[in-house]
């Protein structure tokens, strides 16, 4: 009997997955009940109890939770009162929203959803699931037209996708049009530091950030401050041990700790940490701006134009190719250099287990106390690495580490982006019925309102508002966060941006990266061959998008030309440098902080 069952499993497991998107008809009154957020690291929060009838009492009940705040007591009350009034037509409606599993969203799910339900009577279920699952749900809704979630906290990496497919609601239109009556007057969109990330080429806002974190350089400040190590380093390399400004210095420091210092306090130490397991998270290691750090792409913020950090070239908002032969840069010398350095450092300077780790497995490793520096470190790990008792935390609770801007590769030029900023942003799809969109929009605004945003920042350390970052409460707490606040207060943060508008279909294109990178890691393909293959595969996908057509700015691939006709030309892919390892440059951390003021 099992044999027959197994027959079915072979074909129909895949069929069942595929058939979830079988219906293309829009459901006029789609419910949110179809979604389930049950996967590893997932959960949901909702208020089961009937909301109290006297909702004015709920304001006073919840205000202590929303401290500190940049608003006065009366201003907070006014904002909460607005939510109560605007929510009246939707009382007892059950809405469902979803986000990835990070501390900020867990707080929203467990606390803010409950508060909002008690304040307004709208019953909110806020699921938190893995980022990949969020994209899967979103894709399913986009492909089927059936409402699964009423709003998504979706990374703005998909801005190019949302704009081109036309499935997402332009929030700027919604706020002045059909959603005007449910838009918080004090929302203050200009206060959001990531506003440009969710803005499409048409100038409209499609995604409004709910949380942000950056990809920065992390290092052991205590080790870098030791006189014996500083002297040893200078004797060997001829310049000071400090925050590396370029990749040459990073490499020298990595070599220094792994091969020269070797042990500190009797414990083996490493000058680099990374991850390399064949896993979708290996793709993030590259699509999250690694190539731009090396110097791939044109000048321009938040993303290079005409060529972005994925190596995709855009002309008049139409992607025209990623291969050098089409004017792109995905297989350019700079891109190949970035991959080669990643592999070289992983193998030469990282712990031997690192190649077998995923993003989430590698993340906590610096906290174990044997890593000197990490070039590609997500500030989302700040709270995890600040816990008392860790080998990287002093007895007074201050960290032994600091974060700083990432060093850049030899192809990088001033005016280019320098790192990645993850911006999980509220995203609304056209396929969600209007009344549900309105109710969900109220909840979304609540989670990013000035009333709660500062408290939320202290919970998850994922700042979204200038007003929060500049607040006195944040100034007071800054020493605990190892440079996070200083970074966000500096203009340097503008060089840290998410994937941008050049990428026409993020889910399809992002999935091409990790298998190719993985083959290069093992040596099955050379870095050049891997990037050539990747560039061709991206061009193939864009050719399909061109054939099928997109609502706006569909790809229009350039005809292929010999690479020499593009390389080194103005606004073209950069030609290979004669010297890819210039002299290392470092900067004292204190000097860096001064330069930010």
């Amino acid at each position: 009997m099992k044999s027959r069952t197994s027959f079915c499993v072979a074909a129909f497991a895949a069929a069942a997955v595929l058939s979830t998107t079988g219906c293309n008809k829009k459901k006029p009154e789609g419910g949110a009940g179809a979604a389930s957020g049950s996967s590893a690291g997932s959960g949901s929060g909702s208020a089961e109890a009937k909301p109290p009838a006297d909702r004015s009492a709920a304001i006073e009940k919840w205000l202590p939770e929303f401290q500190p705040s940049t608003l006065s007591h009366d201003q907070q009350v006014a904002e909460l009162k607005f939510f109560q009034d605007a929510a009246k037509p939707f009382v007892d409606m059950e809405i469902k929203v979803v986000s990835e599993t990070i501390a900020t969203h867990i707080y929203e799910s467990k606390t803010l959803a409950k508060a909002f339900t008690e304040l307004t009577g709208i019953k909110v279920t806020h699921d938190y699931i893995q980022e990949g699952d969020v994209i899967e749900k979103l894709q399913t809704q986009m492909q089927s037209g059936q409402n699964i979630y009423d709003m998504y906290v979706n990374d703005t990496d998909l801005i190019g996708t949302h704009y081109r497919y036309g499935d997402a609601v332009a929030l700027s239109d919604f706020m002045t049009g059909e959603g005007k009556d449910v838009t918080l007057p004090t929302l203050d969109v200009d206060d959001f530091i990531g506003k440009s990330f969710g803005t499409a080429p048409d100038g409209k806002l499609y995604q409004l950030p709910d949380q942000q974190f950056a990809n920065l350089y992390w290092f052991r400040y205590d080790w870098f401050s030791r006189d014996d190590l500083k002297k040893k380093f200078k004797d060997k390399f001829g310049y000071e041990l400090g925050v590396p400004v370029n990749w040459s210095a990073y490499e020298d420091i990595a070599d220094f700790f792994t091969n020269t210092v070797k042990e500190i306090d009797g414990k083996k130490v490493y000058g680099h940490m990374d991850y390399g397991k064949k896993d979708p998270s290996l793709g993030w290691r590259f699509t999250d701006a690694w190539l731009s750090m090396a110097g791939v792409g044109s000048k321009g913020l938040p993303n290079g134009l005409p060529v972005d950090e994925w190596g995709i070239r855009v002309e008049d908002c139409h992607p025209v190719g990623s291969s050098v032969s089409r004017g792109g840069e995905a297989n350019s010398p700079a891109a190949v250099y970035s991959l080669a350095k990643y592999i070289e450092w992983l193998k030469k300077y990282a712990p031997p287990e690192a190649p077998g780790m995923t993003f989430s497995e590698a993340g906590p490793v610096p906290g174990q106390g044997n890593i000197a520096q990490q070039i590609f470190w997500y500030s989302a790990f700040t709270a995890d690495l600040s816990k008392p008792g860790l080998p990287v935390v002093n007895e007074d609770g201050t960290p032994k580490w600091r974060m700083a801007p990432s060093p850049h590769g030899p192809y990088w030029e001033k005016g280019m982006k320098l790192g990645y900023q993850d911006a999980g942003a509220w995203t609304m799809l056209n396929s969600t019925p209007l009344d549900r969109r309105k109710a969900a929009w109220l909840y979304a605004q609540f989670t990013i309102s000035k009333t709660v945003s500062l408290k939320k920042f202290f919970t998850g350390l994922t700042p979204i508002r200038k007003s929060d970052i500049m607040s006195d409460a944040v100034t007071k707490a800054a020493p605990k966060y190892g440079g996070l606040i200083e970074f966000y207060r500096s203009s340097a943060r503008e060089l840290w941006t998410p994937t941008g508008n050049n990428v026409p279909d993020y889910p399809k294109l992002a999935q091409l990266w990790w298998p190719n990178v993985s083959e290069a890691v093992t040596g099955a393909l050379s870095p050049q061959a891997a990037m050539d293959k990747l560039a061709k595969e991206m061009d193939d996908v864009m050719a399909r998008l061109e054939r099928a057509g997109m609502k706006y700015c569909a790809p229009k691939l350039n005809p292929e030309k010999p690479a020499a006709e593009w390389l080194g030309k103005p606004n073209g892919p950069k030609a290979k440098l004669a010297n890819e390892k210039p002299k290392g440059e470092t900067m004292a951390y204190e000097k860096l902080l001064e330069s930010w003021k």
Partner: protein
Amino acid sequence: MIEKTRSNKAWLLILPMTLLVAFSAIVPLMTVVNYSVQDILGPNTKVYVGFEWFRKVLRDPELHAAFLRQLVFSLSVLAIELPLGLGVSLIMPRRGWAVSATLVVLALPLLIPWNVVGTIWQIFGRTDIGMGGAALVELGLHYNYTADRVDAWLTVLVMDVWHWTPLVALLCYSGLRAIPPAYYQAAAIDGASGWSVFRYIQLPKLKNVLVIAILLRFMDSFMIYTEPFVVTGGGPGNSTTFLSQFLTRLAVGQFDLGPAAAFSLIYFLFILFFCYVFYTVMNRVGQG
């Protein structure tokens, strides 16, 4: 003589099952067929592409390699697990408390969820914190399944043997227990050797059980996904990337429904073909 009346009402009895099968199998299968001839990028963005995806899949060198890898893996699994399982079943106790104890111990790996099996071996094989990996390194072997293709391959194979050999052993054990004692008594009277008993009594009597074991292990190993996904993610490189991982990446990761549908149909036909071949060959061997 009573004349039989013909009534078509009997068909109604199988209607529920027909509907169930239609919803659980035929409709999804037809949906997959429908998708396989289209390039689907959105609800309103579809292009009919004929057999483009089938051609692409059949010409993809990475899939050829994955297919070969899958085949070698499944044959290796059969080559190890069948004799090992059979051997274990032959030495298992036949009476007393030891029977229950052995059955429980053997069944343990089968009760563990597949993703947990993967996690166990992922940790077990690590050279820093894993007992197995660290022991091999202590013995002077350069073992690192995260970086070495052969080590990764062997780790996945050994994990599968650990996980599924008990199934073969239990099947064979049940087959052995079903052999009537009279056969053994006759063999004893004839003074048959242990090998002769195995060759002429036990093995022929186990034929049906072994057919089931071969089919089950072949199909399951040919569709293996969870364990290698957790342990190696299909790496290093593509060394442990099997067909199911390609399909998952296309269908779930990229949501590339057209190519994924074409691939899943081809995958299905492969399994169908191999199982038919195995079944036919085993039957003929049994009859011959």
